[in-house]
């Protein structure tokens, strides 16, 4: 048996290859869009995984600490540690901000963790260079994606931090790399007022006779100190003891501490289904539009190629070629075009994915799905040309 489609493609390969490349770039964009979504989900999951937490304890009735602000007292961790089934509990703060470094701004998620407590939840689990934070102040561990290097000094708000360690795959659910600093510093950075505000606040306190009674000169200082101290964190991360289920541990914390507690599954739902859902729909829209554009291109090209062969198809029909053979030829050409496009697209997506600022995760399952979609779209797009070819009258070959 002879493959008419294959021979036609070989004969006019230029047309097929150039169309295939154009189509391929579209398919590459489509695969990348899917990869961007996968990357977002993976970032979120990596963040949850690397936090090492089984439970997230946050302010009551909030979706904190990642999807909504949450603020709880920094002594709650002690009472949580005493709850049944709790192995470890650690305070943590999160603050996304822009940091100027080496002449450019880097968007990072500043994470406040307790110094010198490796293995606690919230700590960077693995370093690729340097060491963990051991001093209570002015040291930092950065994700490599920040671009910071060991020994760099970076400024967060009013303080400067020396990068003593580098970690990797520690990103926020938005894809921003993490910068770990000691908890006390982080609390200050998060809740700190600037010095002018403090001076004004102090003056206001001093003018208030209730807070600055004559005859008690120490009181105004105590009040000011309490006003400027920051006994808050965003969440307490909890690791549970073996033999306990997350719900089993979470339930008494909810009831007795009057706090909201999320398990890993609930946290994932908040991040993936709520936070990323809009982006996913956005990407879904793009995928639909790109599919339609690809289909239109394939349909147009295959239709044009077929119409350019009206005479030959009429002759083929006249000399007794089956309609099936002719339809199959056109279908095969459309699929061939799709195949070229897919290969080009896959290569393009793989080549340009690392250049993207955010993590692009190309799953082979998505490629398989994409391949099937391309083939289905090409098959549908060829229907128009097949219909036109079947309408060609074999009498046309004889002419007038």
């Amino acid at each position, binding site marked *: *048996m002879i493959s008419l489609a294959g*021979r036609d493609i070989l004969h006019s390969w230029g047309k097929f290859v150039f169309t295939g490349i154009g189509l391929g770039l579209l398919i590459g964009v489509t695969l990348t869009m899917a990869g961007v979504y996968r990357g977002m989900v993976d970032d979120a999951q990596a963040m949850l995984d690397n936090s090492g937490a089984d439970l997230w304890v946050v302010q009551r009735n909030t979706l904190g600490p990642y999807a909504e602000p949450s603020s709880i007292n920094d002594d709650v961790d002690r009472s949580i540690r005493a709850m049944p089934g709790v192995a470890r509990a650690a305070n943590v703060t999160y603050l996304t901000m822009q940091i100027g470094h080496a002449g450019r701004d880097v968007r990072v998620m500043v994470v406040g963790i307790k110094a010198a407590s490796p293995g606690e939840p919230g700590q960077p689990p693995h370093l690729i260079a340097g060491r963990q934070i051991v001093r209570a102040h002015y040291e930092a561990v950065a994700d490599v994606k920040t671009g910071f290097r060991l020994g760099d000094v970076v400024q967060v708000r009013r303080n400067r931090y020396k990068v003593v360690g580098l970690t990797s795959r520690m990103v926020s659910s938005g894809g921003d790399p993490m910068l770990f600093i000691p908890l006390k510093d982080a609390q200050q950075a998060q809740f700190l007022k600037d010095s002018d505000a403090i001076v004004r606040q102090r003056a206001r306190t001093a003018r208030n006779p209730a807070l600055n009674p004559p005859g008690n000169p120490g009181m105004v200082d105590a009040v000011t100190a309490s006003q400027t101290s920051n006994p808050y964190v965003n969440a307490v991360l909890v690791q549970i003891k073996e033999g306990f289920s997350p719900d089993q541990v979470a339930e008494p914390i909810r009831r007795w501490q009057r706090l909201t507690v999320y398990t890993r599954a609930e946290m994932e739902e908040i991040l993936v289904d709520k936070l990323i859902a809009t982006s996913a729909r956005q990407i879904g829209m793009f995928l639909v539009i790109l599919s339609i554009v690809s289909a239109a291109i394939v349909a147009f090209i295959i239709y044009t190629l077929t119409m350019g062969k009206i005479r*030959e198809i009429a*002759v083929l029909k006249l000399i*007794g*070629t*089956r309609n099936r053979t002719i339809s199959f030829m056109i279908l095969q050409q459309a699929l061939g075009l799709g195949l070229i496009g897919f290969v080009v697209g896959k290569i393009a997506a793989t080549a340009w994915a690392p250049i993207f600022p955010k993590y692009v995760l190309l799953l082979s399952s998505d490629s398989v799905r994409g391949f099937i979609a391309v083939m289905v779209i090409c098959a549908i797009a060829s229907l128009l040309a097949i219909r036109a070819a079947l309408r060609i009258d*074999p009498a046309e*070959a004889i002419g007038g």
Partner: protein
Amino acid sequence: MADGIRIENLVKTYGEGETAVHALQGVDMHVGPGEVVGLIGPSGSGKSTLLKCLGAVIEPTSGRMTIGEQTIYDNEWKIPDLRALRRDRIGFIFQSPYLIPFLDVTDNVALLPMLAGVTNAKARAHAVELLTALDVAHRAKAMPSQLSGGEQQRVAIARALVSRPPVILADEPTAPLDGERALAVVKILNDMAARYQTAIIIVTHDEKIIPTFKRLYHIRDGRTHEEGGRVEPAS
């Protein structure tokens, strides 16, 4: 295949009522096996219409057509699969060769047998045999666009002959060729008819080749008139 082609009282009317065109109004014709006859007539006299009816691509209005011993039409089609009839029993040659541009010369000729399930090697061997007989074997690997008009037409003839059809219908096969080449093509068709016992009808306007026909049908006002007996050897 005793009887070649026999056409009796064939009528074809295009359209109906006011706009009806009476293209064929009772055509009678007979072409024996191994015989080549010419069909001439003024423009619009119904020559192409006759070939289309015989080629089973349009349906006549009434009459009778027989190929070999089989009646293919008797006021209605007598064969269920006209496509197979065309494939197995009728070879077509057109004014333009209409070769498939993306197949080389050999595969253009071998295409039908290959599609019909003959192995590629066997179909190609047979194609080369025919191309040799038609003196274009040296161009067997060329693409159609690389051939001269006369070479293309000979390839088209090879294609028409490949399934050894008992009937070949040629509509102005020499139109694009100069005198010498036109005569060569007619000679080839005569040789092939003699060799394979094919009944061949050649529609033509071509003054140069008309004298070569032993028998000639004239078609006028949708009716045929035989002008046989011209004793001009087909050489």
